[in-house]
């Protein structure tokens, strides 16, 4: 999943550094993630994993690292499987 997230980051997030060089817990905002880019990142993640991120999960913290994104995607996938 983190490989897919890195690919999405390189396609949609327009960071100052290549996502491949980022650690899983590296701060994405420090890497140049803008608020407008988070919107495109979010849509790309929703499309890739076939999920919809609810309003309550949309915080700056969600987009702060690859770890936090992966945790959110797993949580939403599990919720969807259980439904």
């Amino acid at each position, binding site marked *: 999943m983190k490989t897919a997230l890195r690919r999405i980051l390189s396609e949609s997030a327009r960071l*100052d550094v290549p996502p491949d060089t980022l650690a899983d817990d590296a701060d994405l905002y420090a890497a*140049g993630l*803008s*608020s*407008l880019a*988070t919107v495109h990142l979010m849509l790309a993640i929703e499309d890739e994993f076939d999920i919809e991120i609810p*309003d309550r999960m949309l*915080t*700056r913290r969600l987009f702060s690292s690859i770890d936090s994104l992966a945790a959110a995607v797993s949580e939403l996938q599990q919720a969807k499987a259980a439904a």
Partner: protein
Amino acid sequence: MNAPLMHDAGPLDGPPPDATAGGASLAAVEADAGWRAAAQRAAQVAAQHADAVDREARFPSEAFDALRRERLLSALVPQAFGGAGLPLADVAAICEILAQGCASTAMVYAMHQIQVACIEAHGSASPWHQALLAQLVEQQWLLASATSEETIGGNMRTSACSVELDGERLRIEKLAPTISYGAQADGILVTARRTAESAAADQVMIVALRAETTLEKRGGWDSMGMRGTCSEGFRLVATGLAEQILPTPFAEIADQTMLPISHTLWAAVWTGIATDAVNRAKAFFRAQARAKPGSVPPAGLRLAEAVGLLQMMQARLAVALDAARVAHHAKQGACQADLPLSALLGFASDMNTLKTSISTTALQVVHEVLMICGMAGYKNGTEYSVGRHLRDLYSAPLMINNDRIAQNTASLLLAQRPAAPGRA
């Protein structure tokens, strides 16, 4: 959003430091009446010279002498630094009042306050910037900004020039296609890349002072309207101390302060221009009605329409000022990381639509006024002339092009997802 708004908290702030016990509320009332009357006096001076300023495309120096005399250039500076400490809503009201006299004066005043807000919100922990605010109050300094750059185009979020640091000293050289009233400013806020190695978007903001800045004029300002803003092009070379760099990255300054305050104060200016035009239409309509007692002239329908649109603009502006205050308090209270992103993006898109709607509606209103006043409105130099109003307002959709803003808004809207009934 920015510290000036804190004063809106009113009772939470406690009385101003110099207020005597029991006299605080009375002093507040007097202060309120004070700034409004002062703005009206300055607007009168501005109105007297508005046509000359427009014709000669010159800086409205008489109006700024008046604004300095009334000490209105430091209206937004907190009382701790000697300023009036007015909340943003009151400064917006001053912009609106000035715009009823001279749009160029009001726009220069608004742009100055935007710079003050940036320093106040992002430099208040830095001793150099604190001293600057105190100095600004004392000398009634006028601040300008140099955010655009040749070869970069209109996008102020990237820079080609960079800060050159040599120990404690800094130097910047920038080719700026536009620095509004640059030649008249006492200080200029300049954006540049943090270092020569930094990415184009890794920007800082430097407060350059007139004494250490040279401006070589490269382009004139013979424009359709807003002719008194003297938005000429310059080669700017500034030197100073490394401390003159605002500690916050420019990306944050722009998102949190510069853009929202710009859109709000510009909207106040445009609303003021439309208000003056509607007042001219009302006077024309009354004169028409007097000439033919007992009948309502046909222009009445358009006047009713124009007044309705103007009220929508005023209401939209009031909502924006409220939202700015709420956003500011939310930021103060909560950890930034856990703030709902949709609220932040929603705030950004609200500020965008404020700018695009007020700028287009203002033009619509003045168009109605022109239809009401007819040839008397079309001709210059009558009491019903609105040619200058229209020309000045045509800058509104272009100051950060509305099409570009709408595209940005559309992206932001993708993040807004209210819970639909029956869905999580």
